[in-house]
């Protein structure tokens, strides 16, 4: 990897040119790597000092970085070309999940095809959907016309509905968001946005009606965790207690009583930030948030540099979705958002999440690549 001394010695080295020429962006890679390492440290404590879990997560990161580097090499036009097919494929898989899927805890999210490891088709949709919407909108002039928007809305609603039916509220909201971000970035008029916003608020009661009981409970719990402290409110209360009791510098690494004595639920996955907050305090969380800010900042820079409207829209959507992950997860753990199953990006234990995030970054890197030699002189 690149180190400070290396960059110092090669005076002519510039990340921008390196990235545009070779695809892999050194700064984003560095930030991701540091964040992932920070995550491994947190995970060791959060998993109850399970070295094997840390090693497996390390492997996820390595695989993810490899896939990211690989994707960054793919030419933009190839990606644009295959987008509709990938989208169709992902949609078919989602239907298959509803028909033959397997799952746990009353939700049917996994597809177990013979000869393949179990996987969640919704993960594929996380990238396929924004790409598809971007593909559709960039076939015409921007900002999009009303009819284009209607088609785009259909493209979003169908897969989101399929995922919501599994049910997987967290993922469906994130995916809906990623599609919406594309439309937003494509320049949908503010007036229309306001009207849609108003309709959305009006539709909330309808949404409430179609929600599952456990989903309603989660929303109610957010409003008043103490209403059922040992049941639905347990997760939120314990997470807030963990965070709050951490104070400025925390109780010490692997010394968090909430986490180590298992008061915290899902401490190595969705609620891992509570472990960080308890053991390393506000300081530890601030470090993480700064790392995220660096990643996001770099992603924004890459988005600005992205080539072509498709590239800009896709990069922007992936960046914003990454932000949503962070915001929803930390918001949920700190008790400002309802408990939805959203992992903390790059930190929570789980291979699928990490690999799909890094695939997203790979796509961002690929989008800012200039066409071969031409870029050098520009």
């Amino acid at each position, binding site marked *: 990897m690149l180190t400070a001394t290396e960059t110092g010695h090669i005076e002519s080295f510039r990340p921008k040119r390196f990235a545009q020429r070779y695809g892999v962006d050194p700064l984003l890679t560095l930030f991701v790597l540091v964040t992932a390492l920070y995550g491994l440290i947190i995970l060791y404590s959060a998993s109850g000092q399970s070295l094997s879990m840390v090693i497996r997560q390390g492997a996820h990161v390595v695989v993810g970085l490899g896939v990211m580097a690989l994707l960054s090499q793919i030419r933009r036009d190839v990606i644009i070309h295959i987008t509709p097919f990938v989208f169709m494929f992902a949609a078919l898989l989602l239907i298959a999940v509803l028909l033959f899927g397997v799952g746990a805890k009353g939700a049917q999210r996994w597809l177990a095809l013979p000869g393949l490891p179990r996987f969640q088709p919704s993960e594929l949709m996380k990238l396929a959907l924004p790409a598809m919407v971007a593909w559709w909108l960039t076939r015409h002039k921007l900002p999009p016309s009303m009819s284009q928007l209607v088609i785009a809305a259909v493209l979003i609603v169908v897969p989101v509905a399929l995922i919501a039916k599994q049910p997987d509220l967290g993922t469906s909201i994130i995916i809906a968001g990623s599609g919406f971000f594309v439309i937003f970035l494509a320049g949908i008029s503010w007036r229309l946005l306001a009207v849609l916003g108003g309709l959305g608020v009006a539709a909330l009661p309808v949404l409430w009606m179609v929600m599952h009981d456990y989903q309603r409970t989660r929303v109610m719990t957010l409003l008043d965790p103490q209403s059922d402290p040992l049941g639905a409110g347990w997760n939120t209360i314990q997470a807030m207690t963990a965070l709050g009791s951490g104070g400025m510098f925390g109780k010490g690494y692997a010394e968090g009583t909430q986490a180590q004595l298992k008061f915290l639920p899902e401490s190595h996955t969705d609620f891992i930030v509570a472990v960080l907050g308890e053991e390393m305090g506000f300081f530890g969380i601030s470090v993480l948030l700064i790392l995220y800010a660096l990643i996001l900042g770099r992603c924004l820079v890459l988005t600005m540099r992205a080539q072509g409207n498709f590239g800009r829209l896709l990069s922007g959507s992936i960046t914003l979705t990454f932000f949503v992950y962070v915001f929803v997860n*930390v918001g949920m753990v700190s008790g400002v958002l309802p408990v939805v199953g959203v992992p903390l990006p790059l930190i929570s234990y789980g291979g699928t999440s990490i690999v799909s995030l890094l695939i997203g970054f790979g796509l961002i890197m690929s989008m800012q690549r200039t066409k071969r030699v031409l870029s050098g002189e520009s």
Partner: protein
Amino acid sequence: MELSTGVREKNLIQSRVAVAALGGGFLLLLLLTRLVWLQLIETERFQTASEANRLQTLPVGPARGLIVDRNGVVLAENRPNLQLLLVPEEVSDLDQMIAEVRQRIEFTDSDAERFAKNLKTRRRPRDPVVVKDELSELDAARIAVDLFRFPGLQIEARPTRFYPYGGLTAHSLGYVGRLSLDELKSIEESRYAGTETIGKLGVEKAYEDALLGQVGVERVETSARGQIMRSVDREDPIPGADIPLHIDIGLTAKLYDVLGDNRGAIVAIDPKNGGILGLASAPTYDANSFIGGIGQAEYKALQVDRDTPLFNRALRGQYPPGSTIKPMLGLVGLHYGAVSWKTEISDRGFFQLSGNDHKYRDWKKWGHGRVNMDKAVIESCDTYFYEMAVRLGIDQMSEGMQHFGFGRRQGRDIQGDLPGILPSREWKRAARNQPWYLGETVISGIGQGFWVTTPLQLAAATTAMARRGNFIEPHFSILEDVDAGAPVPLGESMDWERMIDAMEDVLHGERGTARGAARGLNYRIAGKTGTAQVVSIGQEDEYDANELEERLRDHALFVGFAPADSPSIVVALIIENGGSGGTTAAPVARKIFDYWLLDRNEGSRPPDTNYVTQINQRVLEPKHADSN
């Protein structure tokens, strides 16, 4: 044109990206605010909540104080006991769990029955219930390896009360038992936070407060599942105080030994201080049976036993005192001038009230001839005391006799004793709403009629005799010793000495009713025999002990002390349906005096443990039900 469209679109998207970035930055700031509030402002509140999560305060029960006899022999101790416990609130399928337990350890039907009873006993919520007591190490290990599979089940080494001589001490020490919900209402609950038992009877109950000790506190760190991870700090409990008794376990064994298979009671008191040296009530039971909750069958057997082993005859048996009270009554008569030492009456075998032809018969059919006070006591002349009683009147009789402690509970550290009845006009009015009749005064003169006393009262009254006119309340523990008792304001010192001389002649005189028991004695006993009627004998009926059914035979009584001049022991005993006091009770008393004064060198010799153990085993052996 085309180019400018491209630039416009690029600018549009980039400006939107900037707007989104701003919005994101704003939201991130919001999140940061939330974290600042949680982690920097409300820290203390959440730290408290986290500590409350983590730390649990557990009470630690103190070790109960020991009970020791006058020679330091431990009569009640605490033994480690591996118990299999279960918190019913945490068990979903109880039957299945018990079935699983039965597969692993020896669990008999009587264990199951005992457990079922424990389960039914009302208790504090979440108090564990004993599944099986006294687990063997092997059984404990068998359960322990699988314990994680049985939430709610636990093995604990809890100290459990043990009475090494449970049969000999049951009626004096009582026992501890599981705290019942009713008892919870009358105790200070916090003191019992770590304790599940309470003194139910006897010394255990009387000294509950001192024996209990002070509860300690242990703070432990627990996981979310309630598992104890480690101890954080601990304030040790303060063990209960040891209670030293006057009881001599060797003497107590002797009391049961001499009682043999008879039903009866003996109370032995140290006249120097009123301390109870020995107390026996036969038959007896094993106090240890009651500690972990007694089995239904076992309890039932004790309850329906015709010989009532659970009944404390020494404290609660109310028997007519018969002639045993004659020396005291004599002193009352002398004091009130009903008779003097010189008074003589002529006894023809019966007494009659003037104007009534009912004959109050003497035990000696042809009478004792000319009788004065000394002779009346030595030969236990009934006619003399009939006559004296009438001269004295019931009012003065009961007033005088209450100085000896009759008609009331003995108090101090004695639990559950009954008051008996000292008959008086007021008593009869209150209890029966009837006037007093003169005929009732007559039979009161020989300790019959309404008059009933407990063996403990007889021992206490006799102690007042031994102390030459000083009543001291009997008590178990040396903690209750007092310097002096209450003087009995009757007669002069000369009267007491002369009465005691008469009591000596009961054994040592040529015509004493207990002379048979004093043969070959090298020390002097002062005593008095008594024979209490169980059924009243018809006017002209001949009394034939052999023909009466065994249970209708007279009770044999004896009270006395020795050595007569400087007594070191007072004994009061009753043998139910034993016949005459002189022939049955006095020889039994003789054995006790011999043991105390001859076999044993005044407490300097430690008791013979083998003997005590052997007697303890013998009293607990199941007897053959009535021998035919």
